[in-house]
């Protein structure tokens, strides 16, 4: 692309004319069209503007060629996590996928997230995630607190609370994607939520038993695929999953602790 050259030209152009002058070339999109019964790739030619993202291209198709193209989106600024899809096989937010990061001489393929059932075109059924969330013990404050917390103590929890629920981490997780162990496993998004609760300085609930049994945290083999796709750069594996795993191991599998518990079991 010759973006820099065009930028130079545009700087002197009157504001109203910029739209038209920036059409540089066409990109070829192959977008999945279909539903749960199957479907196929459909090719669309989309004129390219400076700074354009994949979601802009999908909107172009919707407005000009196929108004019934199903796609979820809201903020268009990577704050709501609605427009997750697989662009050239990689899970991403379409609103954050700049066209100048792609080789426009090749087609760009856009598919719905792979780990969830397709509803239609790019929209898929993510309801399972909302069901998992309901099972997590909510925030349970300690009694008699004055609600003072130092910024240092909440910094790490605020990292987890950046999650925009795009479910890209759920989509890419091997336990869900390849083994489809959804009934036994909560997935990275919800380990992040639990980490945010467990590490909240004023939370008083205990979610370790649930993490081990209902949420299946042991099934995660820390390949870090979730961390790689997180658009919010949350260190899902290092900061959320591994510390939680350690807490579960300490509680349930540590031989010393286990021995200690057995020895003094008469006390309990």
């Amino acid at each position: 692309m010759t973006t820099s050259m065009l930028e130079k030209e545009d700087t002197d152009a009157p504001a109203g004319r910029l739209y038209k002058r920036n059409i540089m070339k066409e990109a070829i999109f192959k977008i999945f069209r279909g539903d749960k019964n199957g479907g196929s790739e459909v090719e669309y030619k989309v004129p390219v503007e400076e700074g354009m993202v994949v979601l802009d291209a999908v909107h172009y198709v919707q407005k000009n060629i196929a108004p019934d193209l199903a796609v979820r989106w809201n903020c268009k600024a990577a704050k709501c996590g609605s427009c997750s899809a697989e662009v050239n096989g990689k899970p991403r937010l379409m609103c954050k996928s700049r066209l100048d990061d792609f080789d426009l001489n090749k087609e760009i393929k856009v598919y719905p997230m792979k780990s969830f059932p397709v509803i239609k075109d790019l929209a898929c059924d993510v309801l399972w995630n909302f069901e998992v969330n309901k099972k997590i013990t909510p925030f349970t404050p300690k009694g008699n607190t004055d609600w003072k917390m130092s910024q240092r103590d909440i910094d790490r929890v605020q990292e987890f609370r950046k999650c925009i629920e795009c479910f890209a981490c759920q989509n890419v997780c091997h336990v869900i994607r390849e083994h489809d162990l959804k009934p036994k496993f909560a997935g990275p998004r919800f380990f992040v939520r639990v980490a945010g609760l467990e590490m909240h300085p004023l939370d008083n609930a205990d979610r370790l038993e649930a993490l081990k049994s209902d949420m299946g945290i042991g099934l995660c083999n820390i390949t870090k695929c979730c961390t790689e796709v997180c658009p919010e750069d949350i260190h899902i594996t290092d900061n959320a999953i591994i510390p939680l795993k350690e807490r579960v191991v300490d509680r349930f599998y540590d031989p010393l602790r286990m021995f200690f518990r057995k020895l003094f079991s008469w006390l309990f």
Partner: protein
Amino acid sequence: MSVIDRFEIHEHDVLVIGAGGAGLRAAIEASANGVSVGLVCKSLLGKAHTVMAEGGIAAAISNVDKHDDWKTHFKDTIRGGKFLNNWKMAELHAKEAPERVLELERWGALFDRTQDGKILQRPFGGHTCKRLCHVGDRTGLEMIRTLQDKGIHMGIEVYMECTITKLLKDNGKTSGAFGYWRENGRFVIFKAKAIVLATGGVGKAYKVTSNSWEYTSDGQILAYNAGAEILDAEFVQFHPTGMIWPPGVIGILVTEAVRGEGGILTNKDGFRFMEKYDPERMELSTRDVVARSIYMENKEGRGTPHGGAFLDISHKGADYIKKKLPSMYHQFKELADVDITKGPMEVGPTCHYSMGGIRVDGETTATSVPGLFAAGEVAAGLHGANRLGGNSLSDLLVFGCRSGLYAAEYAKKSSSNLKIDEQEIQLAEKEMIRFFENNGENPYTVHKDLQELMQNYVGIFRTESDLQYAIKELVKITDRAKKVKIDGSRMYNPGWHMAYDLQNMIQYSQFITESAIRRKESRGAHSRIDFPETDPECSKWNNVIKMNDDGSMNIRQEPLSQMSEELKKLFEEKELVKK
């Protein structure tokens, strides 16, 4: 088999339509009051516009500025709204916002902290104290997630990706709602004794907007069609700082927190132009003033290359910016190739918020239709002619909570034998299906023309001739919108969804324009080139729109209720005379 038996039916005491901050808070409160609650939203749960609120939530908890109190917050809100606010709402809002914020913290929200471990507050435009509780620049996300995670454990039934197209009545009282599932296009009926509308604003009627596809004035029009009144529709807020380059991101919000944290606005010559327009408050002037100032700089040839102003925060240093404005940093870096820790952003006004909306009772949020309540952006009154930044999130909580409470109380007292009118259902169904039988244009083309019209003729600056032209054009657009043609099936068909949303946007655009014509002065967000002065006479009335019995629109001016003597004492006498 009756007509109604063909449909999927759900029944609740209280149905909340809209799941942003106001809707979620309403559902939580109604549920806590022991009634059965259904919550309907057009998107997935947690994706409503509240998630995009950035700068903070205004509440006089006086953690930073010790002298702040509800009276100061009340005064700022009324002054910001140019004395057109519903004073009762402004009073309740200022008094109750602190409790609503502290309650969020008790439900698990984690706000940024002061040195002594309390909730940190930042300055914002029009607020005379450091008042905005915040989490960096993602306060809305923190708020919606906290409410969502609280709500899902309360037995609230959530109906996601469902659009309501008609409110149903039995004998003049609210009895339910009719809508469709976005996923499969099937119709659904909700029986409800009380309904809370919390559907947000109308930004999508404008070309340059910070609003997402959902903000198509659905609630306002649902209420209007059910017989409720629309108040002060002319007041549409243009946020001074939206992104203006590259084309795909035009309109996306740049948080006021950039200015709150010390950002400086300059024109192409490097002149800090707010010195000219509001030397006292400078960048922290109210949104109406800053938006107009940027517009004027451009009109007089001092705009930046893409038609806006420069906003620079880089003097604060990279670490500080990344900590306090992380999403702005990423937004500009990833979408515009601009590193805001090193140089200025280019910004310009973007349609952001509707101060007008459904007329409600200041205490109960009840509309004039029995059993119908409204809260948040869809309701009018609190913000008057111009909303202060940060007063929206607190509005959602204060009046969301109140609407949930009063809707639950109403439902408990009302009969459980409410009937659904078969004819109403048949009509509602027909209104949605007819698009497939049409032979007109693509709905997106008509939408684009509506947006161009509203942007160019009913935008930041208005004149009689422009507004009259817009009225004429809106008649043509109404006609075209009725005939739009929909291809494909009813299954997840955004074109079909747009065809319905379009009707609402056009109707509300007429309300905006008709109201703007009648307000022959400049006040807050409403600027008339032909009437540039604020007229004290015009501070005495609101524009009220209601449907006549024959379906035509009635617009009249109604006197504002008088502020209590006690509250009047908070202002200087000359201020009250000249307002």
